[in-house]
């Protein structure tokens, strides 16, 4: 009677790699991936190619702090920048930077996580060191890091790295440990699957899913880190537009009622971060890790 039970568990819990057509059909049932992806791509494309009504780095000193109007859709800030132009323009700086930060974190974090998942004391020690490291407030650490390496946009990637690499390490380690113990790996080995076949046919689909989810989450988080740092004046060189710096530029006006200076770049961050979070959420369901 137990014979059928074994057969059932032999099947890999990961999704089967099917045809393009089948993938698309499955994808359509998870609108979050498409909607989120659409917003992100739209924002980036607009940032690079959309014709802007005003030069984003050329202020008009005669039109400062104007409320949203037909001339200035999102209003102007205290220096006379057109907020609409800058909000769109910032997308070409903030989103690619966040993506690069997340991808570099992935490239660095996954091998480190695999190293940390090695059996024995070494792995445990690495994780212990990681605990100590993560106890330190990361925003303070990332500010320190960018200060030391030089106040440039690309050094913000370091800040994203120190925040996201530990997350990738933990994730990869726990997944690798549980996969190694899992019954289907044992079964695959018992049936005589070769190691490479096992890696590609069984482990990869599992790992690809969680890595994509985590990369999407990491990008969302990187966007907040970038915004936080540029809010503190770290990373961006002044006339260039960045959502965080724009929010900082309007911070004082929130107490005096000129809400638009903060709100529109704020919506920019919110939209971008929420899109990545939404994609992560739907991808999680798509790869069906909870088995529902």
């Amino acid at each position, binding site marked *: *009677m137990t014979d*059928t039970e074994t057969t059932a568990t032999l099947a890999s819990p990961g999704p089967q790699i099917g045809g393009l057509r089948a993938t698309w059909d499955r994808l359509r*049932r998870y609108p979050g991936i498409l909607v989120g992806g659409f917003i992100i791509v739209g924002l980036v494309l607009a940032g690079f190619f959309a014709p802007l009504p005003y030069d984003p780095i050329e202020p008009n000193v005669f039109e400062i702090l104007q409320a949203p109007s037909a001339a200035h859709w999102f209003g102007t800030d205290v220096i006379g920048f057109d907020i609409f132009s800058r909000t769109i323009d910032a997308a070409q700086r903030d989103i690619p930077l966040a993506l690069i930060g997340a991808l570099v974190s992935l490239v660095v974090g996954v091998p480190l996580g695999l190293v940390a998942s090695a059996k024995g004391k070494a792995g445990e020690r690495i994780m212990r060191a990681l605990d100590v490291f993560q106890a330190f407030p990361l925003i303070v650490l990332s500010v320190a890091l960018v200060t030391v390496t030089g106040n440039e946009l690309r050094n913000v990637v370091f800040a994203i790295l120190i925040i996201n690499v530990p997350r990738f390490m933990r994730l990869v380690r726990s997944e690798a440990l549980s996969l190694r113990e899992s019954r289907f790996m044992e079964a695959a080995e018992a049936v005589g699957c070769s190691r490479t076949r096992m890696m590609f046919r069984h482990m990869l689909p599992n790992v690809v899913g969680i890595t994509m989810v985590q990369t999407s989450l990491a990008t969302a988080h990187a966007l907040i880190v970038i915004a936080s740092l540029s809010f503190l004046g770290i990373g961006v060189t002044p006339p260039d537009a960045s959502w965080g710096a724009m929010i900082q530029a309007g911070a004082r006006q929130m107490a005096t009622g000129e809400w638009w200076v903060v709100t529109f770049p704020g919506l920019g961050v919110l939209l971008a971060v929420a899109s990545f979070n939404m994609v992560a959420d739907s991808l999680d369901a798509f790869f069906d890790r909870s088995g529902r």
Partner: protein
Amino acid sequence: MTAQHDGRSAATDAPALRVAGLTTEFVTRRGVVHAVNDVSFTVGRGDIVGIVGESGCGKSATVRSIMGLIRSPGRVVGGSAEMGDHDLLQLSRRDLRKIRGAQIGFVAQNPFGSLNPILNIRRQFHNVVNSHRSASREETYELGLSMLRSVGIAGPERVLDGYAHELSGGMAQRVVIALALSLDPALVIADEPTTALDVTVQRQILDLISGLVKQDDRSMLLVTHDLGVVAQYCDQVVVMYAGKVVEAGPVAEVFTRPLMPYTLDLLEAIPRRGASLRNLRGRVPDLINYPTGCPYKTRCRFAFDRCLDEVPALRPIGDGRAVACHLNVHEEVPELASIGSG
């Protein structure tokens, strides 16, 4: 030992539980899982009825449907489960809650899963009793003591003040049984009560629970995948396959003269001395794309063209037996007919 029969299951009494047309499904992203399909059976007063089948055949979902324990995304879509004057499936959640624990005692597979690890045993007795009637702490303590004694626990005081993790598996399951019986339910539903336990204590627990059921004239629905357990402890048996009842009847009859090839295959899969072990071929059907015809057709060695697209209905065939199979057993299949003598 064969199944016992006594006067208490006589037809003059209303049955303890009468399930008819029970259908339960789970809505998932991949589609609707048809877990329980038109299940009907009766638990006679004082009877122990075994539900057997492979994992995933819907036996657990069946008892959970009866108790109203199916949670979203699952739902009971049809049927009735009559207990006394009530149809359990029609009761409001409030009324059903009052019946659970008080009139139906539930014993689950893993005692450590069932018991609350954070609260001491005494508190758990108190909470269960107080869910049905107000009782003081002293009162529930006394009740706990006597219940623990009745399930054969020596030193119940110490157990009551302790926690689940301090108990052995067998002891913990005794505590669960004591909790389940603490409000004197007429019906006990036990879902694989010994599967998670050591082989050495499985028998003790089954002896205990069946003894307590018989002694106080309760009825029991015993879910198991072990035909040996059914043979030893049950009066009636319900064989389930792919969410359906495929054969039902008195244990002595069904096990000596199985009428459904699936029952036969199950019986032959029991390891026996002197007989070559025979495994079941194939796997259980997909419950989302439910097969047409007989669900067992792909694994059945006697399947013929009628099985492919015509669903066999569960039909009564006398002697309190019922079977869902197109075979006109005794004439067409000598192997089936001969198993009774072997």
